[in-house]
């Protein structure tokens, strides 16, 4: 008897671009950066639409009501929290975006091809794009905290 054999598709699908731990790959923070970049990019696209709607409010309610509402946005409020959330997304996407432009479009910061030797780590994983990535994370934390300070303390 000839059995009918079915091959199984084994592609994780889009989940691989929002979950960096679909695979547990070592020495690969670039993958975390990629996932964060995609999530922040998509969130920004959503937020921009909300932003366009919100900036149209004066046309609907009048400038006085708008100014009154904005004057209440001090300390921890829905408006400042929303801005804080947005700032976190935008700082990361912008900072990492600069790194990606250097790496992807100018092809710099990815090291030089070299003769393999132990412990066999690919040159691009040791190159300055990795240092830039850590710099992105550090600057992100600092700038986000500073934005929070300006939003909540002043």
């Amino acid at each position, binding site marked *: 008897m000839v059995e009918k054999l079915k091959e199984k598709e084994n592609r994780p699908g889009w989940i691989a671009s929002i979950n960096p731990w679909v695979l547990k790959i070592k020495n690969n923070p670039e993958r975390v950066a990629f996932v964060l970049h995609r999530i922040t990019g998509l969130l920004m696209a959503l937020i921009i639409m909300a932003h366009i709607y919100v900036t149209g409010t004066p046309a609907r309610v009048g400038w006085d009501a708008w100014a009154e509402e904005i004057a209440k946005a001090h300390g921890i409020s829905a408006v400042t929290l929303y801005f804080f959330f947005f700032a976190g997304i935008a700082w990361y996407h912008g900072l990492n975006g600069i790194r990606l432009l250097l790496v992807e479009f100018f*092809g710099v910061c990815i090291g030089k*091809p070299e003769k393999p030797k132990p412990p066999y780590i690919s040159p691009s994983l040791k190159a300055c794009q990795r240092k830039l990535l850590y710099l992105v994370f550090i600057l992100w934390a600092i700038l986000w905290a500073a934005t929070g300070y300006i939003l909540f303390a002043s």
Partner: protein
Amino acid sequence: MSFDPKAATRTPPKVVTFKVKRYDPTTGKEWWQEYKVETYRGMTVLDALLKIKEEIDHTIVLRYSCRMGVCGSCGMIINGMPRLACQTQIAEVATEANPVVTVEPLKNHPVVRDLLTDFTRFFEKHKKVKPYTIRKDIEEREKGDFEYEMTPEEHYNIYEYTLCISCGLCYSACPVVASTDRFLGPQALAYMWRYVADPRDEAWKERLELIDTDEGPFSCHYAASCSAVCPKMVDPAAAIQRLRSALLKYRLGMYKKEKIAQKKVVEVKPNPKPLPPEAQPVPGADPWKKNEEPVNIPIDELIA
């Protein structure tokens, strides 16, 4: 992939549990099966799987050949990371605290059965990038009386990329391939860059135009997982970025291949040291003539 050169000198846990993902193509059923394996120092995951196949369960299916990280057929996902089973020491992946090793078939390749994956699509993409040197003058390739000039520096620019063993680990790790079947993938594109950068290849324009689609380097998002799993340090992630910036420059009319290697006729020099008698050509034997009477090799004379 980074290797721990000392892993083979460490003793793995005495008994290790192997959790193997099984798939039966006749029923379409999938399940995890556990095996307990007694280990020894220097045992690799492939050794353990073969021990399971010999002593516990011979229905388990996997592919391997060289057992020494050369043929690229034993790729599988070991403890969540694509690796070559024959190059992965159990001592590297199992600890005394957690003596468990999970083994799954490579992702992004269709599964035929258990750990065996189908590489047809992968090799079709490999074929698509024309992985061979192309010269305008076809006939010159047929004559063996010359070489293409190349400096050692030019060689080391591409050497890394020539080490690929087509094991498919990078293809399995790629999050872009995970969501689209169109992307050529890290292995094929690394090969493409190797020939675009190789001074001996003349078809760089055709090559760049061939990959100027959504199958090409523009679909890459630099997750760099390919370079993180490659067992041969090929660095496909960097190759794709080089390809992409070359392609961008080419589109702007700013890219030109720096050097095309030219023919250099080689003088066949006589060997400075005379060959030993057993290596001297046998009188009357001409290796270029076929269908010739077999020559009588004077074996007794040579031995004496």
